Every structure is written in C-alpha cells, then in structure tokens.
C-alpha cells in the first residue's frame, strides 16, 4: 500500500490518541467515520492552548486576550475561505453544525418563497436536508419535488431535468450521500438549475472529508458542512453563501454581535458575517476547526482520497465474497462508505456483535429513512473508512463479520 500512496499510515496513526484505545479487550477499530471523524492531537492541543492561554469573549473586548481570541477566530474564517476558494471571508459563516446551516438558509427563504413555488430535493438526502425544507413548505405553501434514485442508489438525472421549470426556486442536494457514499453530479445539477434561475444549496457534510471543494468553480449558491467530520471538534458548522444571497436573506438568530443599532422601536442589522453570528459563538471550536483543516491539508486531500479509495476497493472486494451480502449504493463515484446487509439478518444484530470485537460501525436508518423505504429494509450496517484506517483493520472486520453471521444464522 505504501508504494501506491503518499500516506505514511504508521505516522498518521500516532497523531490520533484514541487509536490506542481498547474496546472490549480489543484494539479499537473505528469504522464510523461518516458519523464523526476522530481528532488528531494537534486539534486537542489547540483547545487546551485556547483555554490555558487566551480564552475570552471575542469582537468587543479591547483587552489583549479578547484580541488574541478574535484574531484566532477570524484567522480560522480565512482558512476556510481559502480552502473553499470563496471570494470573501465574510461569505464564510460559522454555525453550530450542518443542521444549523441548513436551517439558517431555510429560514431565510420564509419571506421570499410564495405558495406554488417549487423546491427540489433528492431521495438521497439526510434528514437534516429534508425536514427544514418541509417546515419551510408548510409556512410558505411551496411544494417539494423529489429526484428519485435508481436501484443502484444513483440519482436519475433525467428525472431531475423533468422536475425543473420556471416555478423551481430552490434545489437542495447533498454532495455525497451519507447512507450510501455515492457522489452526486453536483456540477451538472448546479448548472442545469441555474438555467432556470434556481438557487442551489449543496450539503457537503459527507464530501468535505474526502475531496477538495471549490465553491467558485462549482458556482454554488450555498455550501454547508460540519467540522466534526473533518478532524475538528463537535459543535461547529460552516455555511458558505454567495454575498448576494447572504445579503438577501434575513438573520436567523437575534442577539448580540448581529446588530448595529438597538432601540426598542427598531434594530438595524450588522453587516456580514456578524449578521448571522449572534451571541457568543463556539470560539474554541472554531479555532480548533481551523487547526483540523490545516491538519487534513498537511496530509493532502488528494492523498487522502487515493488512500481511502484503496481501502474502499479492498473492503468491497472482500465483502462481496461473503454469501448473501448485499451492498447498497453502487457507483463508480463513491467515497469510502459501504452500506450493506447480510441476508435477512437485522443490521442491529451484526452491529452489536462486531462491537464486541471492538469494531465501531453504524447501523439503522442512518438518518435517511427515504432511502431505507426505497430499498424496503429496516436499515443497513454502514462501515466508513478514513485515512487513518488500514487494510489490516478491514481484515479483522471481515473476520468478525463471519463470526457474527455464524452466530446469528
């Protein structure tokens, strides 16, 4: 493996303290990366350093700590701006997560959408990219149209084209499906939607851990993700929005920082990005998220992508040797996620047994009930690999899987 990639897996694994952990007497094998990524020591250290050296509320303080904290916080914004190639740093809004980011945008369109307007989402969406739009439709009378998937789990592009029309106001698709790992053709979707003047939000929660995203090249209107999936801490989300749209939609939270003038008669709102960052933000989290991003970039997303593909191919090949094992989501364009079932065995049973071997997998609906409904299954077992996983871990997983199957059949 080492010959094919630039990943020095031995060194990388040393960066993650949690990989020393034992679970039920076994070395932890963490295959739940799509739920949240593990945290390298540099990120943990940055949190310790924040609280030990310059913890302070930001933006309004004249004192040194507040200044250092503000600098570090704003510096993190610039890191994300550069990473996503946004035009302006104020087009990067820090939120508490992808879910918050999506709700912020959905709320923003409450006053803009009219009854009869149409919203297109896909059947592959995470609940976080379904429910906010349903709430929006309830308030505005707009209608949701759904891009269907085929039996491989891929979006049917021709059906998407049929849904587009002059009433289409918004299009929401995830970049990568969290349940199946399929990479959607978002550039094509964005371009086609723009021909109808529709505004496009891409949910990148499952894409940013695996590939470089260039919002300018994509010409995407909104792009969202969570940093807990890209080596950052919990509680931080990113919302990229084009300046014109961020100026158009109203603020979501009212509070400190997001206002310019406050009287009891009327308040005027501050400019970007403050308009959307009311209240004390997750300061240490935002700073640590920037360090997490730096860490990933120091390894290189291309290297990560290449290495993870090898893991994906290896695991897929090995797993398909198992009788009655069915993988959901078949596509040439996939991230390192395998969602599967074995015969009639309940995913929960397999997840519970492999856990006893120290292997962390996710089981169930994976916050994507419409996909499970489509395949008429109660859920799947999902293994998702990251650049700190190894082929040896996959071998141990396959062994545990065999044991589970034999116990459960």
């Amino acid at each position, binding site marked *: 493996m080492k010959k094919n990639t630039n990943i020095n897996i031995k060194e990388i694994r040393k960066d993650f303290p949690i990989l020393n952990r034992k679970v*039920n007497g076994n070395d932890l094998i963490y295959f739940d990366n799509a739920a949240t990524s593990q945290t390298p020591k540099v990120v943990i250290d940055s949190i310790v350093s924040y609280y030990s050296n310059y913890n302070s509320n930001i933006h309004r303080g004249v004192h040194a700590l507040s200044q250092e904290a503000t600098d570090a916080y704003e510096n993190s914004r610039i890191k994300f701006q550069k990473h996503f190639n946004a035009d302006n740093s104020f087009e990067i809004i820090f939120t508490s997560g992808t879910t918050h980011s999506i709700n912020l945008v959905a709320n923003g369109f409450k006053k803009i959408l009219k009854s009869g307007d149409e919203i297109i989402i896909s059947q592959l969406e995470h609940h976080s990219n379904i429910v906010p739009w349903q709430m929006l439709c309830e308030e505005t009378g707009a209608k949701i149209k759904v891009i269907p998937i085929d039996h491989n789990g891929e979006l049917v592009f021709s059906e998407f084209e049929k849904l587009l029309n002059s009433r289409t106001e918004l299009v929401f698709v995830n970049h990568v499906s969290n349940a199946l790992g399929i990479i959607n053709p978002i550039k094509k979707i964005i371009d086609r939607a723009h021909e109808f003047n529709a505004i496009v939000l891409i949910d990148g929660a499952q894409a940013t851990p695996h590939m470089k995203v260039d919002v300018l090249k994509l010409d995407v209107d909104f792009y969202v993700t969570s940093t807990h999936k890209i080596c950052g801490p919990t509680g931080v989300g990113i919302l990229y929005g084009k300046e014109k749209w961020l100026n158009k939609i109203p603020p979501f939270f009212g509070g400190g920082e997001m206002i310019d003038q406050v009287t009891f008669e009327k308040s005027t709102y501050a400019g970007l990005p403050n308009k959307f960052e009311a209240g004390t933000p997750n300061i240490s989290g935002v700073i640590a998220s920037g360090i997490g991003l730096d860490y990933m970039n120091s390894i290189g997303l291309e290297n990560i992508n290449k290495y993870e593909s090898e893991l994906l191919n290896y695991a897929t090949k090995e797993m398909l040797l198992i009788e009655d094992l069915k993988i959901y989501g078949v596509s040439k364009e996939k991230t390192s996620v395998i969602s599967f079932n074995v015969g009639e*065995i*309940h995913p*929960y*049973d397999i997840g*519970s*047994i492999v856990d*006893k071997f120290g292997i962390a997998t996710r*089981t*169930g609906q994976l916050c994507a009930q419409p996909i499970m409904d489509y395949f008429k299954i*109660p*859920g799947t077992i999902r293994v998702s690999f990251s650049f700190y996983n190894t082929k040896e871990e996959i071998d141990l997983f396959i062994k545990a899987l065999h*044991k589970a199957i034999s*116990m*459960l059949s």
Partner: protein
Amino acid sequence: MKIKEIQEELIDEFAMFDDWVERYEYMIDLGKSLPLIESKYKTDDYLVSGCQSKVWVNAELIDNNIVFKADSDAIISKGIIAILIRVFSHHKPNEIIEASTDFIDEIGLKDHLSPNRANGLSSMIKQLKLYALAYQTKINDE
C-alpha cells in the same frame, strides 16, 4: 418460583460461560424459545418505542398473574426480551413493579442498559413495568 429466584437461576446459568460469545449464543438460544406474540399484535401499538429493531410486547392477566408474549425482528433483541419475560412473566403486577433489575449487570448485559442502545433493555423493562402498573391500577379499581 419468585422473581428473585429466577434471576438467581439466570445468574448461575450465565456464570457457566467463559466469554461473551458463549453468553450471546445462549441468549440467542433463549430467544428462540420465547413465547411468541400472536401476529395480530405485531402492530405499532405494541411496539416498544425507541428501539432500532422492532420489539413487540403484549401482556394479559391470567389468574391475577401477568403473562407476557413478545417478538422482535432482531435476534439479539429477541434474546433480551426472552430473558426479561422469563423473569417477569407469570407474576403478580405488584411483584413485577417492585422487582429489582440488578441481575442484568451480573449476567453481563450491562452494556445494553445505556440510553444509547437503540434496542435497549431499559425501554423494554420500562414497557413491562408499565403493563404491570396498568393492570395493578385496574385491580385496585375493581
């Protein structure tokens, strides 16, 4: 046998096994001997809520004792509910309400008690005790 005695019996049985694999296999076997719920009860009304797999439970009062029947679409959940039913079924509502559940720890199923175990023991125990409570209230009212 009293509830306490059945629990001790189970603790003894599980103590014979060397590792979790054997314990799980035994639990799965117990699941296979579970008195199954009639299929007409396999509806949402009889579901134990908050489970990742489906667990249906029904309770009837026969000669002042509660008789539980259950099923699940997952084998491990079925084993767990089978253990609970062996402990609690055929006892008076009051006895069920007051019974301790410490034995779970001792038979090595503690990790199923987490609020997180989508198929958790806790929800099932709660459900069984709720049935007992309902029947006890009914008895008191009569």
